[in-house]
């Protein structure tokens, strides 16, 4: 029999401090934060959500939603203010719709916008939050390979401390993260890194255009130096194993070489050693690997991907 949220205990804090205080007092009692609910609500409905009760984060939106670049609010951002060494801070309760519409992200990294737009359908994007997607750590989560490719860090707050952890270290086990039971993920930090002639790709392969969990997700970033050689190549995947991962071997193989069909083929061949996809309800290991190889080959060969400095409008 399905259940609904009103069958459960819910604690609603007034602000972040109160939430963290509650979490400190009740740590290890099985209380779990509830953000947009796009993942949790389906688990509650199916009776798969094991929790003593839920900490309703909705009142924290004032503090934890929004996109800031070096501390400047999005509204205040000026064209040309992007600079090497800065950070973009995305509040954990920022919705995917807000990511999709963000002019700052469109300029700095349009991959984030594309990943947000590829997640679920519009209704889910309106509810789902950046932090919720990171903490629920679905193996096929669309935004997760992007955080990996961008060397993002997560900000974790508890009543007594705040720490930052590299996203790649934060995800250790399938569907688990390094968050402590009294910590709340409060933001994700994206380092701004200038690459020469950047090329970007985000691709979700799914059974249909919206409202489907991906069979696989591929995101790629690469610069080309003055000599036309690859610099700082990132090839990141979702749905190709229990965790989002980077194909470091294929990245290294491409690094320092000029794009070509032969280089693309070499990088694609390298993937077989790095990816461990499985058969499941949505697709097969064979198909996932073929697709990963083909997309990698086409990207490294220089056929697919978009130029990095983008003028397109958010949808």
């Amino acid at each position, binding site marked *: 029999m399905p259940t609904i949220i009103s069958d459960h205990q819910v604690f609603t804090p007034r602000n972040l401090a109160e939430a963290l205080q509650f979490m400190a007092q009740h740590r290890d009692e099985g209380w779990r934060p509830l953000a947009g609910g796009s993942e949790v609500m389906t688990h509650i409905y199916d009776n798969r959500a094991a929790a003593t009760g839920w900490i309703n984060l909705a009142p924290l939106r004032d503090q934890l939603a929004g996109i800031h670049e070096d501390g400047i609010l999005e509204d205040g951002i000026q064209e040309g203010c992007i600079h090497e060494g800065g950070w973009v801070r995305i509040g954990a309760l920022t919705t995917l719709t807000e990511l999709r519409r963000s002019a700052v992200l469109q300029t700095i990294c349009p991959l984030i916008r594309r990943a947000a737009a590829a997640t679920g359908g519009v209704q889910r994007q309106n509810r789902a939050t950046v932090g919720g997607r990171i903490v629920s750590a679905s193996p096929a989560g669309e935004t997760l390979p992007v955080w990996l490719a961008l060397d993002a860090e997560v900000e974790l707050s508890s009543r007594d401390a705040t720490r930052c952890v590299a996203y790649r270290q934060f995800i250790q086990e399938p569907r688990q993260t390094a968050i402590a039971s009294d910590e709340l993920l409060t933001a994700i930090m994206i380092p701004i890194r200038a690459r020469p002639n950047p090329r970007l790709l985000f691709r979700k392969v799914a059974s*249909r255009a919206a409202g489907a969990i991906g069979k696989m997700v591929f995101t790629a970033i690469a610069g080309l130096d003055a000599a036309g050689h690859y610099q700082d190549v990132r090839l990141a995947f979702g749905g190709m194993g229990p965790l989002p991962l980077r194909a470091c071997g294929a990245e290294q193989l491409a690094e320092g070489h000029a794009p070509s069909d032969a280089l693309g083929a070499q990088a694609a061949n390298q993937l077989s050693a790095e990816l461990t996809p499985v058969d499941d309800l949505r697709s097969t290991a064979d198909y996932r690997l073929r697709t990963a190889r083909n*997309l990698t080959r086409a990207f490294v060969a220089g056929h697919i991907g978009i130029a990095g400095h983008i003028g397109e409008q958010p949808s």
Partner: protein
Amino acid sequence: MKTTESALGKSVLRREGAAKLRGDAQFIDDLPRDGAWFAGTVRAKVPHARLLGVRRDERFDWDRVVLITAADIPGENVVPVVLRDQPSLAEDFIRYHGQPVALVAAPDQETLALALESISVLTSPLPPVFDIDESLEAKTIIFGEDNVFRTVEINKGDATAALQTADVVIEGEHHTGAQEHAYLEPQGMQAEWTGDGITIRGSMQCPYYLVKAVAELLDLPQEKILVIPHLTGGAFGGKDDFPTMLGGHAALLAWKTRKTVRLIYERGEDMRFTSKRHPARIRHRTGFTHDGQLVGMQVEMVLNGGAYGTMSPLVISRAAIHAAGPYQCDNIHISARVVATNHPPSGAFRGFGAPQALFAVDAHLDYCASQLGVDPLELRRKNLIRRNGTQATGQNVGDDASAGEVLERALQESDFVARREAYAEFNREAESRRGADRFPRRGIGLSLFMHGTGLSGYEEVFFHSGVALHGNADGSITALTSQVEVGQGTRTIVAQLAAEGLGIPVEYVLTEQPDTNQHPDSGPMASRTATIIGGLLITAGKRFRAEVERRQGSLLPDPLVFRATVAKLVAGGERLEVREHYSPPPEMRWDEEKHQGDAYPAYTWSCCVAALEVDTLTGEVAVLDVTAVQDVGKVVNPMFAAGQVQGGVAQGLGWALLENVVWKNGVMQNANLADYSIPTAMDLPPIRAVFLEHPQHRAPHGAKGLGELPMEGPAPAVVNALRSALGIHFRRVPVTPEIILPAWEARNLE
């Protein structure tokens, strides 16, 4: 003086549309509780077993609930559909995982959940049979002596001899998958004990099936059973035979509890344990002359019927009748069988066997053209049924022969020939391009097909459909049929058709959701509302008008005067009612045993064109546009007709490309609407519906059937377009990227 403008061919708005738009429409689960008990089903957890019994956990207080097993059934333990093989509750054997073994009713959801957890089904496992070949081997018997629910053979001329002397014989085997109906509203029933009988409300297409079934189950006279179809949120055939089981379950619980009991399936339960479209394997051997003249066809078709017979004996008949497609051939042998397996029973689904048959024949014909080196358009032009041509059953189609016209019109509307050439050019040059344009391939394909109007053969005679028109005190007229509104617009169309016969404005005709006390049985299924029932309504309307004019002693062309006259006669105590029953046209002949003769009063002919683009990096298919041309005789309501085509094409594209039921031990694994993908609005291309209106002479208004036909075109058109794009003939739907990509890569290695 005013006369009435005909409402036929007008886009009259849906009568229940505004309530649905506002969210005011009440479905069965929206009804106020009013003390109704909740019910649930105890199911077997193995696909094939001997049933030993149920074990109740004595820690639960069983006095709090009512539990029913087969032993408690007062009447006969049967779900009567076509055969009588399916028990309402399992008695000796389990034939599929999820088969109902017991029913529980409880005063609240929590108690129900506890009770369901406190009961287990005891079984002794038997080897299961899941696929068609295993079933045909008959090592394990599930049904009868050989696992075959029914065999239908159709013979025309001598196919064996024709294939021996043919210049070229081409073989092909095609497969189609199961498909989930995916109606918006899951199955649900509410049954109420009325003191000496049962009233059942629920989501259903065929209320009269339920009257008969419940009377048998409870050993009550039929007049004690009242069935009121509730507003129904989609059906597609899924609420044709299955509600006969579910309504029986609700009725059993109402009888035992002496209360009102509500039995509603959750989406997952509905997807796992209710019927699907029959999966099929279809083999063709087809003989041609060197220049592509069709000389012989052998079709061997097997459908997977699942654990019980349900509608399968009728589905296999319709599949066989459509198996040769819209093609003229003098020598045809069709052998069609439907077999038992330990899957949940397959059941009625829009198209009713014809989609599987039509997919195979038209994909195969297109493939044959490629093998013969003939343009597939020319192959079709050469072989399609023309005026006075004959179907596989020997039926002479007379003037009802629009195959050629729908083909030519579709070619013209879709600019087929020019686009086919442009796509071939695009594909030839792909490898020479750099950048993203290197990877897509484009193709365009079509399918040519027909669908019989109404029920097959003698079934229309058995159903003896009826309609009635009844004059009211305010001069309005109520049209009584049992055409249930399931979302297709029936209530509105019934009013349009009755108004046409009566010669009055459509607003003067009242229609209501039927119940089995008031409304004659008119069997709402099989693409027949607008045509068979429509014909009866028009005839009844004319008779009603004539009767009013006779009693008044004058003609009454002015609708206001007519209405005033009806009101006056009714006020004067006169009963104004006209009933009309179907009788088949006297010239129609049908031999059920040999499947020879006039299978249907008319055929709807159609051509569907699909253009698509394949991403050769991923095997993903984007359908670019679909053009569907059909000769429907007469369009009753253009908006609804276009809606049927768009919805049917969407359902057909889903069946062709996306909808993959993943089975494991006889259970659907992807039983939710996230993992079982039906197309969303974002997946659908522009769909253009073009209607031809060559009236059929066996209905007074000329209309033919439309409900099922549109879903039949996309699958063969898509497979044919894929061959045009990739040069590969795919023999299976759904043809997913997991099939397309390895095939493409293997071809490029050759």
